[in-house]
Structure formats: structure tokens, C-alpha cells
């Protein structure tokens, strides 16, 4: 039932429709191209140069060296591996728990609107303020987290963000805390857009509870799920602010995700290397998104085709 593109059989109408479609699309595409082209060309040119921010006098063209330097840098490969690991794990957790949270919140009882408004706060609160506060909360000796864990659960105090083996997990926890409500709310909006006839039909068929959500809702909101996965995946690969504020990639380089690494290169003033790395991140995201669209999107389309027939 999910809406496929409307097909008109009258060819004149179809042509007219296409014209209107391009007209509707044009402002967005033109604006984006206008705003993106110069920065991309600029960054592209930069990636083949040495251009120190702190000493622009020595700027010059150096060919592919920025790229080969990166490929020879073991930290670069480690950061790419870590970023992919991070993105897939975190998005998987967020989607599963976000869906479950959406089910919990999909209630018609009084006060559910209030709950929905409250749960979204983690997305809204400033990542800078919250990232710092998390650092404060995870402070090993005096922080709230250890206070709760040691007084409430008897767990020994631990320095969550300063140990190589727990820093990444702690970051993941905070990131999930922030974004699960986002996933849940988008999925919820999708759930509530399901036409009442279907809900009614399900009710009459006595399909309810968990079964209703997994058998009926899940396939229906697949387009929304795809979009959320895609957007979360892209944003997690680009993950920066929380990572930068909470650990700056440390301790050692145990939480050094790609964007944070690129930012430290920016701070070092290696503008050329930064741009080269930026393009590699761009390629990485394009690759991941391409694979994602090829596998999952195809199945979405196939499902849509099936719906139509």
C-alpha cells in the first residue's frame, strides 16, 4: 500500500507532470549546486596542495602526496576502520532500540503527547553543553555516574573516558542516548501516518500488540526506516562534536574517528591534508551509501512492485 509514484497512462499528462516535477525540484537543486560547487572545487584544489594555515607563504602544488601520505599513515587506516565499526554498531543499536521505544510511545493514553515531547529533549539539548556535562558526569572520582554505580550497584569506581578499553563504549552510550529518541520519533510519525483503515482492519483481524507492529507496521513504514538509517549512517560516519568535546580522539587514539582526526589536522593547519582527508571521507560515505542503496533499496523497490501487483 505504500505510495508508489503515480503512473498516468495518458502520455501528454505524463509529460506535463514531468515538466512540473522538474520545476518543483529546480529550486532545491539550483540552490544546493550554487552553495556546494564553489566549496567543493575549492576543497578539491586544496587537496593537491601544501597550504599551511600558519605559514601560507610556503603554499604550493604537490600532486597526490597528501593522499599517499594518508595511505601510508597507520593512524589513518585505524581511524577509517574505527569509524565504520562505530557507524554500523551505533546505527544498529539506535534502529532496534528506537523502534522499540516508538512502540512504547505509540499510545493513545492521556499524557503520551507530553512523554513524546520530553523524550526528544536529548536531541534538542546543545551537544556542546551536554558533551561537557557528560565529561563531568563520568568524572572518575566525583562524577555522578560513578556515584550512582558505586553507591547504588556496588560497582567499583572506574575512569570511563580515560581508559582505552571503555572510552569508545562510553561514547557510544552517550551517542545512543542522544539519538535513539530521534529515531523513535521519526518512526512514530511514520506509524501515525498509517491510514486508519489499515489500523481498523488490523484491529478487526485481532492482530495486536507486538505482532501488529512487526507484521503490519514494520513493512508499511519501510520507506521511513530506510531514510532514518541512511541519515543516521551518514551522520554517524561524519560524527564529530560529541567525539571532539568528550575525548578529542583519546586516550591515545582509541576514539579517533575520521571527522575528529580531520579536525585535528585542520587545527594543525595542514589545510591540504585536511581537504584530502575530507574527500576520502566523502568517498567513504558515498561508498557506504551506494552499497546500502543497492542492497536495501532494491528490496524496498521490489516490495513496492509487489504491493502494486
Amino acid at each position, binding site marked *: 500500500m*505504500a*505510495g508508489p509514484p*503515480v503512473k498516468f497512462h495518458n502520455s501528454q499528462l505524463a509529460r506535463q*507532470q*514531468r515538466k512540473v516535477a*522538474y520545476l*518543483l525540484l529546480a529550486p*532545491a*537543486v539550483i*540552490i*544546493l549546486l550554487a*552553495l*556546494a560547487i564553489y566549496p*567543493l572545487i*575549492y*576543497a578539491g584544489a586544496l587537496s593537491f596542495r601544501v597550504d599551511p594555515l600558519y605559514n601560507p607563504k610556503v603554499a604550493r602544488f604537490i600532486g597526490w602526496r597528501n593522499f599517499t601520505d594518508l595511505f601510508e599513515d597507520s593512524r589513518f587506516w585505524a581511524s577509517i576502520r574505527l569509524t565504520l565499526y562505530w557507524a554500523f554498531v551505533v546505527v544498529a543499536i539506535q534502529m532496534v532500540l528506537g523502534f522499540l*521505544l516508538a512502540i*512504547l510511545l505509540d*499510545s493513545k*493514553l492521556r*499524557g503520551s*503527547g507530553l512523554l*513524546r*515531547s520530553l523524550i526528544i*529533549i536529548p*536531541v534538542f*539539548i*546543545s551537544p556542546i*553543553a*551536554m558533551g*561537557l*556535562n557528560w565529561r563531568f558526569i563520568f568524572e572518575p572520582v*566525583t*562524577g555522578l555516574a560513578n*556515584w550512582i554505580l558505586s553507591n547504588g550497584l556496588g560497582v567499583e569506581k572506574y575512569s570511563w573516558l580515560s581508559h582505552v578499553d571503555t572510552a569508545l563504549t562510553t561514547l557510544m552510550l552517550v551517542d545512543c*542516548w542522544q539519538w535513539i*529518541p530521534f529515531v523513535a520519533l*521519526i518512526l512514530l*510519525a*511514520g506509524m501515525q*501516518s*498509517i*491510514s486508519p483503515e489499515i489500523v481498523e482492519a488490523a484491529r478487526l483481524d485481532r492482530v*495486536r*500488540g507486538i505482532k501488529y507492529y512487526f507484521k503490519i507496521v514494520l513493512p508499511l*513504514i519501510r*520507506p*521511513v526506516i530506510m531514510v532514518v538509517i541512511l*541519515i543516521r549512517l551518514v551522520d554517524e560516519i*561524519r560524527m564529530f562534536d560529541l567525539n571532539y568535546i568528550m575525548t578529542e580522539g583519546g586516550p591515545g587514539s582509541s576514539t579517533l574517528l575520521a*571527522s575528529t582526526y*580531520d*579536525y585535528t589536522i*585542520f587545527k594543525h593547519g595542514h*589545510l591540504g591534508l*585536511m*581537504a584530502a582527508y*575530507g574527500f576520502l571521507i566523502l568517498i567513504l560515505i*558515498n561508498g557506504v*551509501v551506494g552499497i546500502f542503496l543497492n542492497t536495501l533499496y532494491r528490496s524496498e523497490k521490489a516490495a513496492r512492485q509487489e504491493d502494486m501487483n
Partner: protein
Amino acid sequence: MRSTMYSRMLFGLAIVLVFIWLVPVMWVVLTSVKPTNIINSAVPIFFDFAPTLDHYVEVFERFRFGRSMLNSFVTVGVSTLIVMIIALPAAYAVARMNLMHGDTWALVILSLRFMPGMVIVLPYFKIATFLNLIDTQIVLIVVYVAFGLPFAVWILRGFLLDLPKDIEEAGRLDGLSWIQIIFRLIMPMAAPGIAVTAIFTFVFSWNEFLFALFLTLDKGSTMPVALQKTIDLYNVLWGSLSAGAVLQLLPMILVVFLLQKHIARGLALGAVK
């Protein structure tokens, strides 16, 4: 009967979960009304202190939050409005019209969002200084449109794909033009999705830091930048930081409560049909 019991239980669980979820946020709110020496105590102190509004006074007096707040409202408000006006037709075209390579277009639109911000910030800085737009709201509005648009188109696309397929045909039979179909039929039906998209477009710009930092100086700076000023090199002014975070959060909560109604109305309209 069993069903209500069951849904009540679920709802109770949801309440407990939301409460736990918000503990860190409550901690921030609590910090914002604590005197400084209580904040810096060695053991977390929950309620045993005399609440103070000093930090709120401080963020306005010293960190000029009033001005930053106004800047934030103008830049983020205007850019969100522009984004929604442009994104809705585009998303509609991509999602529901028989567009050649519709998905490819959608991808092109999304691709700007792939670039790490720090690579883009430098060229924008150069353009802005060239046009003498540094420290103005215009440059931030432009950037927020550029970064908000792809996201909005994609989220909206998902919601529009979800709508029943026969709306357009019904509208066409009633003699409505495409624009009328979009604004009279699609918009009310997709209201929950549009509301959610608008909220998130708003919030991403609202909390955006990197561009706001580099493209403004002081007069044009937005709230995230003002907030960052509470972080001294030698100690963080936790009280002011938290007070600022709460002030930055309040308008967002307000927006959500206001839009909550629209989301409900959108549902009701769908039900009537």
C-alpha cells in the same frame, strides 16, 4: 479489558524509561541553579542547597545571551522557513511524481551533507570575508539552508512515500492544480511528517557550532558560540554553562509543545478522510 491493562502497563514502562532517560538533563538543570561551591563539591549534591538564579543573571549580563538568542532565532527561524518552502515541492517531486531518475536526484541533493563541515567552512569563510558578510546573519542563513535542505528533502520524501497513492488522482478529478494538490491535499495529510521535519531542521541549525563559530565574531554569534564562552581554559563555569544550555533548550521544548497540536490535527484530518 485485557488490552487496556496491557497498554497501561506499556505506558507505565514508558514513563519510567523517559524518567531515567532524562536524568542527565535533570542534572544539568539542577547544576544551573546550584551555587558554585556546591557544583564543585567532591560528592554529588542533589537537593541540599539554596537554589540561586545567579548563573542565569550571569549568562545574560556577562555572556550577552539576549543578543545571541535573538541571533539564533533570526538565523535559524528564517533558514528553517526557507528550507521547508523549498524542500516540500522538491520532496514531492522526488517521491510522488514520475520523475526520471528520481532517486538519483534525491541522492544529488543529499550529497552535500556528506562533506565534513571543516572542509566546507574554509571556502565559506573566504566568500564571506570577500563579500564582507562575516558576522552577519545572512551568511549563517545561507549555510543553514545549504545544510538543512538535503536533510529536509530526504525526511519528507520518506513521509510522502508513505501516503496512499490515490490522493493525486482524486485531486486531479476535482480539478486542482499541482500546487493546490501539494498545499491543499498533501500538506495536511503529511502534517505530522512535515512538523517533525521542521522541528529537526530547526534543531540542527539551532545547535550548530562549527559554522557559527567561524563565520561570526561576537555581534552575530549564536547561542552555541555564546555557550562555548563559558569554557575557560582553566575552569569550566559549570553553572553558567548549564544555565545557558537550559535557556537554549527552553524554546525548543516550547516549539515541540506547540507543534504537538498540529501533529494531532494532522492525524484527525487523516481520520476524517
